[in-house]
């Protein structure tokens, strides 16, 4: 049973990995400055961000301004996780019930 399960996991992992590596075939070479990722959207951040947001750190500019809603979501994620942990791990003692 256990071995059988591990075999299936291994097969799934190998298939997934093979698929991912197959996908890299068409990928631009590592570090290619003209790859689509580096040439479609991002140049504008580099050239414009400082002008428009007055921040020398472009990553901060994009994080807190262009994609600020991602960052809002990010803080919401942390908030969710902290509340979740609080929710799950907090002990409610019986005497609290008598308080109100």
């Amino acid at each position, binding site marked *: 049973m256990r071995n059988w399960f591990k075999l299936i996991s291994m097969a799934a992992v190998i298939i997934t990995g093979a698929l991912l590596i197959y996908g890299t075939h068409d990928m631009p070479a590592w570090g290619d400055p003209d790859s689509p990722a*580096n040439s479609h959207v991002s140049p504008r951040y580099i050239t414009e961000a400082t002008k428009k947001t007055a921040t020398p750190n472009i990553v901060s500019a994009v994080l807190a301004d262009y994609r600020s809603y991602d960052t809002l979501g990010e803080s919401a994620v942390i908030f969710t996780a902290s509340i979740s942990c609080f929710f799950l791990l907090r002990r409610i003692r019986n005497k609290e019930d008598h308080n109100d």
Partner: protein
Amino acid sequence: MTEYILAKYNYWIYVVLMMIGLYAMMGKRNLVKKLIGMNIFQTSIILLFVSTGVKKGGATVPILMHAGHEHGAQLIQVSDYLNPLPHVLMLTAIVVSIATTGVALATLILIYKRYHTLEEDEILAIRRESRAYKTPRILNPTD
């Protein structure tokens, strides 16, 4: 051929890392090992993403060095700076990964409190045993 490998090898390394994580998530029977696998998996995705922002040929971190100068903006060459977008995205992804790990650990604490083990097989055995003579009832997980 060598060129091809040189152009792609780092992607392949991330994929291999990813698959190690994925296998741990699916094949391991210890819950903490699964969680560690999850972390490896997420981290390797982050690496893959960040690596797409690399530009060869002298590009540096995307912080403008002479931003204080009036005419600094005109001097900016796109090829001088790394692609900032993947960094931004991965900042968020790192936070997500941490948050997930946190919640997963919280559930692991609950599981350990209840079953006093983190081996999946043992937990399943305990649950099977308890189901044999009682129907599930609503419990406060912190009991």
